[in-house]
């Protein structure tokens, strides 16, 4: 059983001289609870893949099937609703609304979905506790460290029980200790709480926390390896020419 799947997914930007094939017939299937890392050189189409799978953008060709429904054919309102209910996002930058507290940020998808604010806040506090931010729920983003901010983003991504969590370089802006903590948290999210995660990263040590590593080059998947431990991860990376 797959929870999310792409078939012949293609994205072409521009036309003529400026035409860029960002994604070139990508087929990828993700199982429930699976933690997948995406690696590859800058500009190879990793972010494009995540954006298409998350319904932030529409493909030029091919389909994205989430929970058995093709989201490529959906209207803006339908997509918005899918993003709200079935997908969680963690970005590198601009993750949080600066004027809202940590708990309010984490509760956003629920509140947007019509859950009464009190109840939503309560669930956000619980989720913040799970990601290890028990005492900072009333703080605003500028009062939190980078690692703490990303924890809030993870809490927000998980709060609606999404089918798929998409994380685009979630540790790209963090020091190595915070990066390890966030990677460990995502490991826990997939392993203990059974969420599927698709994470882009440049950092082999972070990728080593995943169950499976997908390597991309020039808009195509060039390698797809299931890893048992950090050694097999290292092998795969060497094969892909990343180390």
């Amino acid at each position, binding site marked *: 059983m797959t929870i999310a799947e792409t078939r012949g997914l293609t994205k072409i930007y521009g036309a003529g001289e400026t035409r860029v094939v960002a994604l070139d017939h990508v087929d990828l299937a993700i199982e429930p609870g699976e933690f997948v890392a995406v690696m590859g050189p800058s500009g190879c189409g990793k972010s494009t893949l995540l*954006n298409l799978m*998350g319904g*932030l*953008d529409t493909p030029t060709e091919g389909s994205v099937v989430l929970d058995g429904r093709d989201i490529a054919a959906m209207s*803006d*309102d339908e997509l*918005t*609703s899918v*993003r*709200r*209910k079935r997908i969680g*996002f963690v*970005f590198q*930058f*601009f*993750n*949080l*609304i*600066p*004027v*809202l507290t940590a708990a*309010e940020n984490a509760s*956003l*998808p629920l*509140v*947007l*979905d019509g859950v009464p*604010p009190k109840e939503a806040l309560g669930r956000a506090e619980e989720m913040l506790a799970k990601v290890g931010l028990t005492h900072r729920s009333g703080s605003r983003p500028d009062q939190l460290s980078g690692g703490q901010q990303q924890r809030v983003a993870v809490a*927000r991504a998980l709060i609606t029980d999404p089918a798929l969590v998409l994380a685009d370089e979630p540790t790209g802006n963090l020091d190595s200790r915070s990066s390890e903590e966030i990677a460990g948290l995502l490991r826990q999210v997939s392993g203990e709480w059974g969420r599927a995660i698709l994470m882009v990263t440049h950092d082999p040590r972070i990728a080593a926390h995943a169950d499976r590593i997908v390597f991309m080059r020039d808009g195509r998947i060039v390698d797809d390896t299931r890893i048992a431990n950090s050694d097999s991860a290292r092998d795969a990376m060497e094969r892909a020419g990343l180390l």
Partner: protein
Amino acid sequence: MSIQLRLAARYLAGRKLRTTLTTLAIVLGVMVIFGLNGILPGMIQSIQQVMLASVGQVDLSITSASSGTFEPSVAQAVARVEGVRAVSPALRRTIALPRDSGLDASALVVVGIDPVTAPHVRPYPLAAGRMLRPSDESGMRTAAMMSRELADKLGLRLGERFKLPSASGTTVLELVGMLDTPALPGSEEVIVSLPMAQRMFDVGDRISEIDAGFVSGADREAVQRAVRRAIGPDYIVGAVQTESPLSAGFEAASFIMNTIGVFALAMGGFIILNTFRTIVSERRHDIGMLRAVGASRRTILGMFLLESLMQGLLGTGLGLLAGYGLAIVANNALGRMVEQIINLPPTDVRFTPSTWVTAIILGVGVTVLAALVPARAAARITPLEALRPAIGDVYEAAATKRGWAGLALVAVAVAGLLSGNTGLAGLSVVLLLAGLALGSSVAVRPLSDFFSRAIELVYRSEGGVARANLQRNPGRAAATASAVMISIALIVALVGTITSTIEGFGVYAEKSTGTDYLILPQNLLLGGGTVGAGPELRARVQDTPGIGDVATLRFANTVLNGTAVQVVGIDPKEYGRIAGFEYSKGSSEADLTRLERDGTVLANGVFTAQYGSGRGDTLRLPTPSGEKRFRVVGVGNDYINAKIPTLYVSQAALERWWGVTTDVLILADARPGSDKAAALRELTKTVAEFPSFALYDTASWRKVQADLYAQMESIYYVLALILAIPSLLALLNTLTIGVLARTREIGMLRAVGGTRKQIKRIVLSESLLLAALGLSAGLIAGVWLGYVMILAVEGLGLAMPYRFPGVGIALAVAVGLSFAALAALIPARQAAKLDVIRALRYE
């Protein structure tokens, strides 16, 4: 919903300085609309109250349609109508009290009643003393009653005597009774016997009012109809007439105030537009984030609209408060002036429901409307666009389209003015302002190229950077310049109009008061309220040594198309010798002699404008002696009556048809070569015996008028200054936004060696450039607006000389440039103080 509200509130609170600046712009607009409109209804109502008070508790009140006096025999006709139980005749006159009367009031209403029949139609609840008696009519007793409240106010006790002006000079009355009735401000009544009143006002046995009481249980409507049938159309049955030229004037004033308020709000609108554009571009990442986690386009739109709604409510609320303050201050200033001219009692500030509604809807509406365009742009942003670090200018394309639409509007406006139609011309001003505001985004580049050349002469490199900054965001520059433009246009137009108006009246005054002495009542305009003088005053003036020609003016009222028209009686020969008219096109001195024939009138300009009847037309006028046809033989203005629709007839006609024989205004010339000082001394002594009259020698009369206009002028200047403030806010707001948005760039400039002084100069140059853009458009619009306002005044019948508003332009340029420097002060200092390292890290 609640998340939008929470976000809107947090964002608003998070940008305090900008929230304050933007809110202030709305506050100003609402303040002007609400405040100025708060003054007028009070004045209008006070006029109406004075007139309505006479209806009181009586079942039916009958007055002449021409507001004059009529034969007492009409009362019998009313008494015969079925359902009428009792009738009582009355004579009612408002009198102005001389300043030295010793009574603490500026005007009183004298009511003559029939002591026998009056109590049958109206209650007279005695508080002290006694009711008037028929024996009071013998002429030996001069008894009077009044409300206890009024007696207290005047400081009178039972049995005390007091003086009132009358046709024969003064009349001494004795207070015999005090009533338990409320004294309406402005219509405090002194009640005397009817014959006493008739003698006081020299009206023979004529009356001005019949009060009637109904049999109990009568069908009031039916009785009223029957009475109307019995006495014919020359009478008003029911309420007294409340429409007056004066309240029409106040309504026109209210229209002008509203227009100015709308302009002020339009400036606020531009400021809000700028603020929200900036907010949207600053919050792109937040918007993208919200969209990514599931906020719909509607949620984003709603969030910004809610933010503008909250800001609109805040600004409107504060604006209402400020407007209340403005109304009180302006009411005091205006009240003193109005009291001088028309002797109205002091009025309260009053806000009608429609004033509330207009102010609130406009205040909130303009804010939300101005935010709508940026809010919709925000809702259209896709999540991906918003999450990308680079920010493009999303307004560029729209600005060109709007620019062309604006230029098209300007073309339509030009056609509108050239049509020569006043109504169209007024509309074309609005179109021109709108067109310039829209088209200005297209004009930003060429105009700023042009003006920056001047600035670059002084600040070589800084001027160039400032120009580039402006051209980078033409929409923002255009909105700011538009706000400045409206300010400037209003200043030029207001100052220009007041200069022309004052000069115009100067010309009238020169011609119309070419006499050496004027003797006139202290309240001049409230026609019905003036007590005339019998023949004695005129005769004594004529007999004064050193006095040559004398002429008098007499006043009555008639009604045309339901509104009151003043009828002035003159002796054409006499009046032509001593004073004369400023004749309108097609009329001349010769028309004045035609007035000697019965059935002819001379109309003034305001009358012709209001009723569309000119030379050669025939008017059917109700008079106390029945309807009568009059032919208009000419059109001309005199200074005193220039503002009121007026018909001039011969004094013989006025006596015959209106029964008026008393003089209200006496003009006199000194005999050439006589001792003017001695003549003035003699006249002063004579006039002192007629306390409701005042004597002016022409020089001091002109000075009084000039003082009045100086006061009016200063009010206009204050208003112009208030209207200039939004342009200061617009500049300040835009410069602040610009400095914030370019923090990184400024840091970069400093890093590569730019001095603090240079940074300051860039901001100042930007401010000057923006002001120059607004000034150039505003001066054009202002000259135009002023011209159309003169056209409009002319349309009302007052030919005004058009004067090019040189003073207004000089003032506007001075205000514009000094505001530019002032507005740059704080943002320039902020920009110069930026910490380089932190600025470079800013995102």
